């Protein structure tokens, strides 16, 4: 490496010297303050449209001849691309027509800061431009109509490259917290203030064109403000990103967004196409039809990906009932009906779903003291008894046959507590007539089955037929 560096440095220097030698000298106005008493001597174009605004540099040799002063190489710089509407001739004529032909507005009014020495020139002293034009704010905070006084709309500023557009300064209004909401930039764009009514604020058109708005706006074709802008692909040089509104990040938004959408689909239309909705909604609800389908000249809008709502944590299946029953439309956004029925209406396909793998083996413990309500999903007759009968546990004709409950020899005579605690388990093998063998007042042994909380009068009022099973037509009354 050490052997390479010296020759490499020499080569670079040799290459740089010719380039450096060709660089024109700078012209320093202040250094020449005592030489030039007039601006138009060099800048004749400021008063004569036919003349060049910048000198050719040939006059420099009058002094810089190599004897009096060192020889210089100066040439007029290439004019910088800009979006100014301004020309000296037009400006002069307008001043003359407005302020009078005898107006004494001189070059220094725009090019030398007030109070500064002669020849301390600047391309343009912006505060002085604004003051003259009656603008009371800083440059980038000027009212929207004021921009067009000096600046061309982007689409007419053809000299600007995409790099120039990308380098546009950001006005302070764009930094406001609510600028990206409809009430922010939307209101500003709609504000046709000033002497003329505009479809879109000229301040917007100064930097932006339709393509920029379409980056986000799905409703661009239906928005007059956006349509009032001309098309110019250079406007895409200004980066913009569709941001999620604060409301969308609030807890429960996934659940409640339908309500908001029904209230005002116009708000949704700005950023969402129908495709946003059908990313999740299987069968789109009606508000979706009011949104625009994606298409040409329309922004792609928000890209929606289906995700689990925050409420759907690991144990959500255990507590989903109140939410699901109170707001089924919300569930239907992501879930199809068969998913609910997979658990809520069992089929012969009894593969492990709601219950774990070994539940069939351990179900007696869960069923005796109802871990959950079995009969909410299983019919005691067609489900429980069908299996139990085939397993030899059916009770008909064996009601008084002792033996199955053999852990307690006297179980038959002492089953009352067990029966009242686990009656649903009893009925998975036994039928009514098993029990009525003893408990019927008509043809049984007359053992009273009624226990705590039994309100005979109330039940008789609702369905006396139930009473007649044991009491016949002579249903006793509480009185």
């Amino acid at each position: 490496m050490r052997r390479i560096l010296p020759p490499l440095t020499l080569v670079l220097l040799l290459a740089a010297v010719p380039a450096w030698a060709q660089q024109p000298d700078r012209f320093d106005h202040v250094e020449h303050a005592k030489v030039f008493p007039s601006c138009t001597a060099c800048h004749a174009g400021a008063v004569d449209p036919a003349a060049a605004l910048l000198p050719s540099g040939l006059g420099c040799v009058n002094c810089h001849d190599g004897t009096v002063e060192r020889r210089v190489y100066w040439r007029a710089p290439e004019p910088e691309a800009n979006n100014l509407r301004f020309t000296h001739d037009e400006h002069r004529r307008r001043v003359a027509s407005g302020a009078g032909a005898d107006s004494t507005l001189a070059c220094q009014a725009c090019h030398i800061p007030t109070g500064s020495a002669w020849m301390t020139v600047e391309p343009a002293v912006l505060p002085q431009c604004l003051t003259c034009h009656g603008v009371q704010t800083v440059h980038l905070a000027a009212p929207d109509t004021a921009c067009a006084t000096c600046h061309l709309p982007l689409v007419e500023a053809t000299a600007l490259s995409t790099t120039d557009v990308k380098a546009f300064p950001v006005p302070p209004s764009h930094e406001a917290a609510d600028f990206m909401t409809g009430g922010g930039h939307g209101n500003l764009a709609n504000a046709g203030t000033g002497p003329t009514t505009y479809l879109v604020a000229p301040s917007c058109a100064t930097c932006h064109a339709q393509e920029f708005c379409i980056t986000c706006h799905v409703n661009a074709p239906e928005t007059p403000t956006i349509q009032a802008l001309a098309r110019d692909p250079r406007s895409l040089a200004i980066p913009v990103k569709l941001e999620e509104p604060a409301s969308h990040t609030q807890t429960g938004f996934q659940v409640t967004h339908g309500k908001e959408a029904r209230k005002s689909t116009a708000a949704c239309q700005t950023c969402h196409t129908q495709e946003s909705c059908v990313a999740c909604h299987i069968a789109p609800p009606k508000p979706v039809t009011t949104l625009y389908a994606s298409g040409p000249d329309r922004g792609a809008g928000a890209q929606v990906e289906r995700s689990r709502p925050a409420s759907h944590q690991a144990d959500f299946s255990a507590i989903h009932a109140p939410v699901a029953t109170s707001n089924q439309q919300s569930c239907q956004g992501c879930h199809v009906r068969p998913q609910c029925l997979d658990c809520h209406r069992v089929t012969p396909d009894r593969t492990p779903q709601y219950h774990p793998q070994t539940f069939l083996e351990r179900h007696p413990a869960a069923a005796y003291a109802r871990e959950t309500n079995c009969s909410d999903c299983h019919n005691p007759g067609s489900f429980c008894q069908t299996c139990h009968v085939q397993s030899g546990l059916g009770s008909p004709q064996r009601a008084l046959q002792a033996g199955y409950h053999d852990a307690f020899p006297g179980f038959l005579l002492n089953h009352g507590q067990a029966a009242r605690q686990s009656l649903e388990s009893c009925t998975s093998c036994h039928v009514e007539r098993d029990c009525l063998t003893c408990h019927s007042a008509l043809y049984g042994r007359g053992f009273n089955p009624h226990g705590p909380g039994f309100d005979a009068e109330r039940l008789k009022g609702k369905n006396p037929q139930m009473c007649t099973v044991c009491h016949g037509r002579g249903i006793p009354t509480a009185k």
Partner: protein
Amino acid sequence: MRLRAAALTGLALALAAGTASAQGYQLRVSGGIQAVSFRGYSADSIRVDSVVTGPNGSLETPSGYAVACTSGLPYCNYWVPGPIRHSTPGMAQAALTMWGLGVPGLRVQVNGYAASDFGSEATWPGVNPNYQLIEGYAEYAAPAWTAIAGRKIVTGRLGTYSFDGGQLTGRLASAGLSVSGYVGAGLAIGTNLPYSSEDLTPQEEYLPSQSPIVAGVYGSWISPHAELTAEYRREVDQTTDYFGSERVAGSATLRPFGAWSLVGGAVYDIASGLWGSADAALRFATPKVGVVAGYRRYAPFYELWTVWGAFSPVPYNAIYGSLSVQVTKRLQLRVRGESYQFESADAETPLVSIEDAGHRVSGGGTYQISNAWQAQLGYQNEFGPGAASSGWDGSVTFAPTGKYSIMAYGSSLSRPLEYRWDQSVVMLYGVQASVVARENVTVAFTMARYDENRERPDAASFEWDQVRFGAKVIMTFSSADRLPLPKAISNRPAGY
């Protein structure tokens, strides 16, 4: 019945025509078959004078089966191990949702299945009748109201209920209010069958000869921090005009702060004048920690065309709690416990001691070994009146992509009964796998071996084993190119 058949046929024809013209649909078709065995008991009897006294002083048959004799009867009863019954149920199910039928807001839902048991030794529950319509209805939804006609299942605190009829729902979205009413012919609880179906009464239990008229109202109010619901449902026997049931329920979910919620509700049985099931739970849920502490009351419910309610079943009251913690990015631990106590049964049982309280505890963990490997281990213990159980379960899953997974699992279970000498000990080990064969086709199968030991102190003790097999294909067809649906319940295994 003819009317019902005609309605169903008409609906089927309308659906067939609708499918052809519908602009949007989603159809899930699944088919599966299982091979399962089960074994119970057979009752037998022996003359009293043939009974012998066993080594421990109990009465037995000469072959060693414990007998129970009733004083005064000439014979004694006993139970021997029953035959092994093989069952091979197969089922094909179709669930269709259609929209875009020319009327915005109109949608049709159909869900039904055909099933049969290909074995000859047993009848698998649910295969009779062979064709069953779970749901089939047309729905028209406008922003402020929804109308439904057909077979519908309604769910809520009053339970899942099927009916053939209509439902009308009105909504005031700006206020979060919704009110729904329905009326129709009720189907038997937990089934897709009318009460007149013979398949509901394998032991010829009495049921109404006609479907009851069911009517209900459901109201709800939702807001970002609360949900309140109220339900009312009544069933009326068409032949007698007497009530089959009349109940009302209320539920509330309150979310005062982000991670906290209070969920609860209760059922009141207007017909019997008794409170039904109820619960209340305080929940704290964050992505890393979930805590639940609650109370619940379980009370059985019987319709009034049975006499079971007259036997005064008693409720139990329980307190429970659970905790789940995401200890690390890979490890999650969870534990749950419940303790319950039956209310007084007001029944004298001087000769036997019956449990009137119980508990359930379970715990476990899941460890994500890598993106492809996951291990799970759990333990559960349950003790209460009638039966108890305890056991371990564990599994290792390999799922390198979302397209296929294979899981090996095993568990042990001990299940003693309270009223009968019977302690079943089961060892289970098996594999299950699922493959997304194509974008809309999933194939799953499972195979497991069950080793069961029925331990008893007499000759009725037996050991047996079986291999269970299942295979299933799920196909989804849709008019739209969409992502697969998220699982409704996350802890369900895929396919099987």
